[in-house]
């Protein structure tokens, strides 16, 4: 065969090959005209759904359902519809690590993970970071105050800030000086003890007793008797999974009446309310219990969109509407929306590409306009505008460590379990307690 003929033959064969490669490349690329890949992506809820902290997982699942509903109704995140999938950590690092590994291995289409409480954040954050999975954690552990994990995000303050807010509320608002610390012996609850102790002592208060109680025991009568003998003005507590219900019922029985109790933001929870209400009676709970919570207004167009879609999610999760005023539910909802908008902005489903954009969406870039509903924000992005997401939980202010926080409100329950704000800590009071606690 003539060499020139061979060259021509090669050229002829190359043409369809180039055409085929072009088609394949177009299929795989995320062009400016929009994605051609519309595969469904997974929002993982990595949290305790069983075990002593099993009440936490449903609150985060309740965040995912309305977010996915809103995003899918708008055509998805960069054209990808989403679905929520639960991954149970049992609130135990030993179970959380394999759960996280299986979640990542079995779900290459993972978009974002929410949950990861203080029970399991320490071991699972590095796993998710290595796998380049953006995640929003509901942990208050101080080790994440300056985390180097690029894919880690936190929309809640460190636990010690919960403790500082409780101390501020007790000392400045209620004039309680003698404080009993009754926290579960799980790592998440114990994180409050040291900062609370330091702040109380430094501001002239007294810790009458510090009890680390084993969760899920059938009785705490001896512990309660011991605590009552110290005659505290108030009990600071976070002991989840029914433990507070049992403990406080025994306080009421052995003391003859309730004494004031102050809880962390995790005690503002429908499951906690229900258990404690059944144990001590709704009136005693309403009259004697206060808590601190994340500064959320529960109003505005972002909250309305969240609430509407949360209520509509009750077909998938009957208890979903109960989480309408749970700070963590609102914040994780915002986390998922911000991630979806980051995909819209990056025009990519590649996690390494859209992860940095989450900060841009949360904080807004120069000239950004605030948006409160997903569809409007998505349209603005598609129109080339800079967007700042201010959703159900209010504005986000990520620092260099992807931490964002908004301060505290002082709250109590009404008789139906709704959260009622009765006061707030001023910035000066908050700073005073933080300084006293060494924060």
């Amino acid at each position, binding site marked *: 065969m003539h060499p020139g003929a061979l060259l021509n033959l090669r050229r002829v064969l190359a043409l369809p090959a180039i055409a085929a490669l072009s088609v394949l490349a177009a299929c795989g690329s995320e062009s400016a005209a929009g994605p051609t890949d519309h595969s469904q992506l997974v929002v993982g809820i990595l949290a305790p759904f069983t075990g002593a902290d*099993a009440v936490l997982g449903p609150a985060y699942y309740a965040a995912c359902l309305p977010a996915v509903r809103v995003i899918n109704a708008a055509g998805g995140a960069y054209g990808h519809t989403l679905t929520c999938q639960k991954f149970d950590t049992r609130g135990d690092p030993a179970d959380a690590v394999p759960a996280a590994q299986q979640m990542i291995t079995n779900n290459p289409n993972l978009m974002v993970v929410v949950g990861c409480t203080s029970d399991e954040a320490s071991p699972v954050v590095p796993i998710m970071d290595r796998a380049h999975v953006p995640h929003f954690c509901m942990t208050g552990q101080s080790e994440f105050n300056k985390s180097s994990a690029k894919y880690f995000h936190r929309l809640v303050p460190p636990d010690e800030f919960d403790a500082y807010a409780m101390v501020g509320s007790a000392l400045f608002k209620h004039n309680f000086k003698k404080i009993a610390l009754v926290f579960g012996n799980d790592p998440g609850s114990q994180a409050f003890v040291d900062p609370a102790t330091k702040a109380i002592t430094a501001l002239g208060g007294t810790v009458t007793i510090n009890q680390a109680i084993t969760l899920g025991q059938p009785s705490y009568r001896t*512990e309660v008797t*011991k605590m009552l003998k110290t005659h505290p003005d108030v009990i600071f507590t976070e002991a989840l999974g029914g433990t507070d219900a049992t403990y406080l019922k025994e306080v009421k029985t052995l003391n003859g009446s309730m004494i004031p109790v102050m809880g962390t933001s995790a005690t503002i929870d429908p499951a906690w309310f229900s258990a404690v209400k059944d144990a001590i009676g709704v009136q005693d709970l309403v009259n004697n219990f206060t808590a601190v919570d994340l500064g959320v207004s529960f109003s505005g167009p972002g909250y309305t969109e969240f609430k509407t879609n949360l209520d509509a999610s009750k077909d998938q999760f009957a208890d979903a509407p109960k989480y309408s005023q749970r700070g963590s539910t609102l914040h994780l909802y915002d986390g998922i929306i911000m991630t979806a908008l980051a995909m819209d902005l990056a025009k990519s489903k590649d996690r390494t590409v859209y992860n940095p954009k989450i900060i841009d969406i949360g904080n807004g870039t120069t000239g950004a306009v605030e948006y409160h509903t997903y569809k409007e924000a998505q349209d603005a992005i598609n129109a080339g505008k800079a967007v700042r997401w201010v959703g159900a939980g209010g504005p986000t202010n990520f620092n260099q460590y992807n931490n964002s926080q908004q301060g505290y409100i002082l709250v109590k329950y009404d008789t139906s379990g709704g959260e009622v704000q009765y006061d707030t800590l001023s910035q000066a009071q908050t700073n005073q307690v933080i300084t006293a606690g060494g924060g």
Partner: protein
Amino acid sequence: MDLYIAAFGFGLVSLSVIAIAAVGFTMQFGITNVINLAYSSVMISSVYVAYAFNHAGVSIWLALIAGAIFGAVFSFLLNRVLYTPFQRKGTSLLGMVIVSLATSLMIQNVLLAIAGPYNVSYVQPSGGTIRLGAIVLTVVQVLVIGIAVVLMLAIHALLTFTRLGKAMRATAANPTLARNCGIPTSRVIDVVWLITGALCGIAGVVAGMNSDTFAVGNGPGYLITIIAAAVLGGAGQPYGAMLGAVLIGEMTELSAAAISADYKEVVAFAVLVLVMVLRPQGLLAKRGALAAAG
């Protein structure tokens, strides 16, 4: 001193609940040769059956009976449908442990799907408190102690004075010989599962009444204490389980008073380990009602 007296009084309540559960568990093992790790799952299931009745408007005391009946029937069926076929195939004791563990996990997860993870409570009369010096107990707690005493006496009477009790002891000692002597061992074993299942159900419901709140997740926690009491007293020995319950119940409360709530289980289980080192067969081995002759 008042604190220790109060803790001793609280220990009476704890040991009562443990005793009812541990006697049922140890009789199951002693007579049927099954270490039934699904015991706590049957227990928590019974708690929820009583809860369903209670929240349908039935008094807690009638709901307690419903829980006991459920525990009895469920345990009976568990043995007939699951354990007996495995035993007939010659499954080893360790194999049966694995089967019962798997069964436990299945029951718990099905129950979790039905009942959810949330804590719930019985509707029960507060009934006021009874003070005896430093000891302060509610009326319900006093009744729980009373129920435990009555049940322990009934078990003692059953094993000591009735033909059924003697048949149980014979079956426990040597099932083949008992069968050759004309004892219908399979029927005896059926009755044992019914009786121990009822004890399991009652223990669960009184535990729920005592703690005021419960969730599906409480099940595994029960098992550890039950096994500890049974092993401490001598596995398979009802009186041993009673003694084990007394020691575990009182030690946990008194150590919470003396040291710290952090260490109450540590102290109780440290004593268990110590006893196992000094007397591996348990405190009352070969002395209980189910012990082999000689």
